[in-house]
């Protein structure tokens, strides 16, 4: 029946048109591919640093560059303050974030020595709640391979990672414990904490 055929064709064409328009529309939300692309870049940058054979001070500054480029430093810094972030002034938050960035670079960058001769490989990516978890495996010399995952979100307006989890240990949560203890030691004085962080790590 020709009329049926036509209707089917029209239907088919419109479905195809909708599918095409969906496919060609620029991806607005973060998806698995974009999360993976980001972490592929992070990992390739890290692998380049640990195979470069440069002195530790250079590795630390390289790590700081990678961290500020691909991680959402301000949300990580803010969340390590916990509820105390709410009573900090905008200027304090800004100074704290700047100090925190250097602190993280020194504290974790100096560990890059242990990564020399090793490599990281990206494995899988999946969506968890509002973020994407990219799992990778680190192969270090003389050690059993271990899992490193990155949590990626676009809620800052850009695709950035907001946590790095090594064998279940979250950098963000561990630093929150540490920063909380440092703040307690200063009886909650955020300015004193900022001065400590500038020298710490």
């Amino acid at each position: 029946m020709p009329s049926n055929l036509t209707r089917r064709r029209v239907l088919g064409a419109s479905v195809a048109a909708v599918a095409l328009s969906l496919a060609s529309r620029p991806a607005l939300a973060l998806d698995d591919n974009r999360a993976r692309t980001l972490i592929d870049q992070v990992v390739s940058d890290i692998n380049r640093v640990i195979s470069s054979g440069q002195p530790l001070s250079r590795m630390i500054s390289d790590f700081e560059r990678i961290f500020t480029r691909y991680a959402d430093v301000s949300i990580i810094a803010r969340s390590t303050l916990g509820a105390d972030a709410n009573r900090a002034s905008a200027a304090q938050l800004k100074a704290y974030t700047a100090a925190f960035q250097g602190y993280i670079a020194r504290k974790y960058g100096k560990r890059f020595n242990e990564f020399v001769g090793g490599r990281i490989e990206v494995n899988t990516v999946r969506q968890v709640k509002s973020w994407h978890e990219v799992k990778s495996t680190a192969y270090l010399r003389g050690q059993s391979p271990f899992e490193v995952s990155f949590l990626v979100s676009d809620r800052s307006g850009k695709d950035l990672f907001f946590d790095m989890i090594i064998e279940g240990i979250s950098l963000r949560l561990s630093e929150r414990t540490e920063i909380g203890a440092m703040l307690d030691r200063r009886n909650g004085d955020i300015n004193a904490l900022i001065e400590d962080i500038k020298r710490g790590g």
Partner: protein
Amino acid sequence: MVPVLSSLFRHIPRATGLVGLIVLAACARPDSSVASKDIFDPYERNNRQMHEFNRGLDRSVVRPVSRGYTAVIPDDIETVIVRVSRNLSLPSDIVNNILQLNMRGAFHDSARFIVNTTVGLGGAFDPASEMGMAAPTNTDFGETLHVWGAREGAYVVLPLLGPSTQRDTWGIVVDVFTNPLTYILDSPENLVGTVAGVGAGLSNREKFSETIDQILYESADSYAQARSIYLQNRRFSLGGTASANYIDPYDTLSGPAALEDPNAE
């Protein structure tokens, strides 16, 4: 990575009261109203004292001894001792795999044990890994209790062994008694596992010394840091979905949600 000290004394063999202990351990189900995802540390005062004791012991004995041990013993011998220790822990792992009804794991660990004990000359070498056999399950009775549905219980710090939970403490006790090697081997031979275990523990203390030193001696509050890291890592290795209780930091940017429980991790 963290409970390195616990491998030190994992292999102490004893041979009594097996059944009673398992019954006791199975009863050791702490209050079910306690959410297992938060940090539950009602014994913090005692734990902190024990932590300080362990820290002193590490500073004065374990760290210097591990440094001397790794300096004196050639690297190849050290590797052999670590391998022997790992191989001798397999029979106990096989028992636990069976108790967890993880028959695949029990089979893989058995195959590994047979290959490494024979071709690998008593575990001195690791042909199983070179042949690409499945990775060891590396389990324990604490995991068995977890599989059986026992709750994690309170965080505890054990003398010498360091961070643990009530569930894992029962696990350690039962593992000491259920290691088949205790019953198969005769009196002097069954000490091999203990000695190799101590050696492997010293090697690990030195191998991960930067990490351990950072936690114990460079943290603002080494007790809180060790507790956080131990619980995160232990829950991860027990297959706990870390993401289930993970809070999106972007949610806490404004509003009442920002008044987050500081112990929410």
